[in-house]
């Protein structure tokens, strides 16, 4: 039987130029969430066998080709860890890039905002790794993933801030969608402690892009609930978030989300 999986691979295949890859990402990222079906592949098509997938239930570390998030709360925490790894890796690249380093040092300025966000995402990442490592054997904890940001121009303010905005907005919608999938009130509280900080980031980045506008909590990213108005962040299911992440081409490891809770 074919097992659907989230296919995570780069669009950047050598024939595509940087711009093309980036444009593709932004186009897809701009949708924030795309139907996951486009990115579901059978393992046969990817040359990964059912046996290999099943074996991953007990093995994950040092296997950067494909990782099964697992089930239950552990699976959701692994999912959060993957997203935080992505964010931390992105901002690490940002602070090593020429755009960031050309910014003037100023209190509360753009450079400090990006540096703070970098700190926060590294802290989230390492915290989740510590937490996961204390409740699950190594094989059940997501490995340190490899990322490919060749589609991002780290010398470009517009490019860096646009990607940042997409990652932060996606993070907010991802935690919002994962909350109801958690069984433990303690994990739920932790997710709550992190998601509002991601929302603070999203707000600040959006305001850097369009200062003084309504974009910090813009109608472009919020949704309506029950006809009461556009005033709510999205809550997006893990499979849809992972599909959108896959579409960026940033993540070089295939992530299997088959065993995550869906309700």
């Amino acid at each position, binding site marked *: 039987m074919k097992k659907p999986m989230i296919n995570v691979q780069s669009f950047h295949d050598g024939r595509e130029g940087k711009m093309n890859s980036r444009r593709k990402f932004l186009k897809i990222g701009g949708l924030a969430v795309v139907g996951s079906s486009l990115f579901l592949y059978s393992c046969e098509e990817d040359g990964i066998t059912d046996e290999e997938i099943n074996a991953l239930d007990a093995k994950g570390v040092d296997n950067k080709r494909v990782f099964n998030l697992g089930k239950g709360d552990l699976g959701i925490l692994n999912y959060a860890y993957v997203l935080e790894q992505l964010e931390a890796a992105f901002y690490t690249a940002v602070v090593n890039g020429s755009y960031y380093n050309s910014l003037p040092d100023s209190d509360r300025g753009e450079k400090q905002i990006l540096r703070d966000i970098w700190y926060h995402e590294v802290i989230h990442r390492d915290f989740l790794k510590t937490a996961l490592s204390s409740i699950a054997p190594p094989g059940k904890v997501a490995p340190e993933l490899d990322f490919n940001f060749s589609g991002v121009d780290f010398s470009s303010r517009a490019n860096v801030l646009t990607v940042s905005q997409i990652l932060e907005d996606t993070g907010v919608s991802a935690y919002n969608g994962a*909350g109801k999938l958690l*069984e433990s009130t*303690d994990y739920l509280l932790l997710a709550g402690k992190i998601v509002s*900080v991601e929302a603070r980031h999203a707000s600040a980045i959006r305001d850097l892009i369009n200062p003084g506008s309504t974009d910090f*909590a813009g109608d472009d990213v919020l949704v309506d609930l029950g006809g009461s108005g556009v005033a709510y962040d999205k809550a997006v299911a893990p499979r849809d978030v992972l599909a959108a992440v896959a579409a960026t081409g940033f993540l070089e490891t295939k992530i299997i989300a088959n065993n995550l809770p869906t309700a």
Partner: protein
Amino acid sequence: MNIIKFLDDLSDQQLFETKGSRRDSFNQIKNVGKNFALASIPFALAATSKKTAAATMSMSSAMFQASPIDVLNFALTLEYLERDFYQMGMDTTGLIPESDRAVFGQILKHEVSHVNFLATALGDQAIAKPTFDFSGGPAGLTLNTFGDYPTFLALSQGFEDTGVRAYKGQAGALIDSDALLEYALQIHSVEARHASQVRRMRGEKGWINANNNTLPIAFSGIYAGEQNTVQGGVNLSGMFNNYGGDAAITEAFDEPLTMAEVNAIASVFIVS
């Protein structure tokens, strides 16, 4: 998900009985032994299922666990407070500079929606709108809230940061009500977007640094506990010295407030 579905959920008695019923509490207590065994695991949260978590709660703080209706009315109180505050601010000629009206117009729009959503969802179980005094009269204050823009900004920040902490503090009370929990989270992060924006307009960072309070002293409770560096039973203090240190740790995690703590903050402005 729409209001109709939401109301369906609300009318589902099962929803409201999952946490509160006596029978459930007894059943949950049976799991306590299992829960104690888990306490030896370093990351103290290990594998707490809804049931074991509820058992813990039934042992330690069942009396503080609000029903979903209580939670929604608590949220509605805060949303009424915010809505009236921004409505009065926007209606006061000369208070909000032209350059800032887009921001506060957007925030007001959201608070109006949140009030309508919660009031509709609660139906005849919704509380009546309280009477507010934004000068802080009920606490003996005489704030010139609508005559002095910096004061208006300060209260705005205080309300938004309090809102974030308030919703966060009630998430656990909704864990068995998936739809309600998700709606609450969808509001929670919008409050955080507001908070970040207003903080930055006041020259603050968008994120809360330790328990630093730049609001009038009467509001220090809004930031109480934000200096926490222990997350999930792990003390992160000293672990991120190359990444902003303990200050960054406190910024990276927003902390909850209990319903009582939030009510104490809100009571400064509630006449009745």
